[in-house]
């Protein structure tokens, strides 16, 4: 058995064990921590498959931001799951078994793992992306050129999904004041993490580097793993860290709520305007070759950079705004 297969099997074993443990736990804080572990192991599996960009996204979103958001939710509700009566567990079991059975059945049609004749290897479009993208676009990281140029429509769709999800969450959280929000005011037991001097100093020390790293990931996405999605999440993580340590009000002074909310549509608008600019310059929607007349490669570079920037703006806006909404409800509880 090769080392590669052994590592894959071990990681999949940990993944399965984590999933089973999550489903059996009633303590929700522990379950949240285990979902972070689940994401971390998935990210390691993606690294083993050479999908570094996906692994990066999984690590940033799954381990980082979503764990913090889960904890924010748990602060609003109870930390222990109710016991479901046995009779009501049956429909869920049937659905899970059916869905799982269908997935296992469908997986028989998948090509063999590590096979040399899988569609990914032999399909002509693979060759187009891997070889011709170097002449057409000249970006070393093919993932970025596929994501931001060849498949720019798909990425726009993904961005719209994030936008919709973010707006929906904000509408649910921000419109109606929560139960008991105004009456009680700020609880006396409110613990401010800024009281811990070491934490305060270290987080202030790290904060500029986190934001700098976000920009590095954004602008370096053409050459290495990274891009708008990861950069947006890391940028938001910096503000979430500040909000966690210094309180939501402190973070609001740095990034006012209207600004965070305005970032959400701003990214999408920038993206669409970029696509329309390609049309006005004689190409098709989201065609970047005409952005720099006479130099299609430079046009592609500019287009990719602007696509990544707009993705980053929307993602960062959604993450920061959603976190602030959760956290301010907790602070006002």
């Amino acid at each position, binding site marked *: 058995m090769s080392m590669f297969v052994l590592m894959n099997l071990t990681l999949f074993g940990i993944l399965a064990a984590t999933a089973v443990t999550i489903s059996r736990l009633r303590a929700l804080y522990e379950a949240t921590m285990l979902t972070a572990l689940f994401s971390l192991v998935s990210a390691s599996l993606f690294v083993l498959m050479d999908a570094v960009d996906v692994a990066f996204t999984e690590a940033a979103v799954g381990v980082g931001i979503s764990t913090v958001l889960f904890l924010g939710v748990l602060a609003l509700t109870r930390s222990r799951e109710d016991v479901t009566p046995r009779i009501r567990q049956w429909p869920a079991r049937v659905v899970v078994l059916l869905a799982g059975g269908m997935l296992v059945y469908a997986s028989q049609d998948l090509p063999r793992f590590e096979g040399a004749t899988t569609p990914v290897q032999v399909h002509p479009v693979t060759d187009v992306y891997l070889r011709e993208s170097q002449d057409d676009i000249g970006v070393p990281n093919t993932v970025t050129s596929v994501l931001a140029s060849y498949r720019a429509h798909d990425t726009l769709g993904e961005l719209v999904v994030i936008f919709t999800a973010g707006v929906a969450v904000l509408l649910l959280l921000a419109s109606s004041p929560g139960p008991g929000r105004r009456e009680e005011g700020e609880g006396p037991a409110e*613990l401010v*993490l800024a009281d*811990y001097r*070491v*934490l305060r100093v*270290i987080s202030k*020390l*790290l904060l500029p580097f986190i934001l700098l790293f976000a920009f590095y990931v954004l602008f370096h996405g053409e050459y290495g793993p990274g891009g708008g999605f990861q950069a947006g999440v890391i940028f938001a993580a910096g503000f979430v860290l500040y909000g966690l340590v210094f309180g939501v009000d402190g973070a609001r002074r740095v990034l006012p709520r209207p600004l965070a909310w305005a970032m959400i549509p701003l990214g999408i608008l920038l993206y669409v305007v970029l696509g329309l600019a390609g049309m006005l310059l004689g190409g098709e929607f989201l065609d970047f070759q005409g952005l720099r007349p006479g130099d299609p490669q430079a046009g592609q570079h500019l287009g990719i950079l602007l696509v990544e920037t707009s993705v980053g703006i929307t993602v960062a806006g959604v993450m920061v705004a959603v976190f602030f909404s959760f956290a301010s409800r907790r602070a006002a509880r």
Partner: protein
Amino acid sequence: MSASLLLDLASSASLLVGSLFVLSGGIGLLRFPDFYTRIHAAGLTDSAGAGLILLGLLLQTPGWETAVRLVLIVLFMLLTGPTSTHVLAQAAGRDGVRVWRAGEPRR
């Protein structure tokens, strides 16, 4: 004895000792009697274990670009690991978690 062999030996030793620290951290997390001793074990994994493993990798790097990244990761771990252990211990202290004394049952 050539320089590269020495480097390889130092790197392997560092990786091995680092792995032992990670392993002992995991065992400590399972076996230690109370919260404070357990976060001591977890902190050992973060600082000594990860630090030594990264040092071992640093001795193996081909170019300075990778080395710079590894040094940055080491610095980041050195800052965040002890901070999180400290904050956990402080928070437990505020919540009134008592320190385990010899002879008491495991908590």
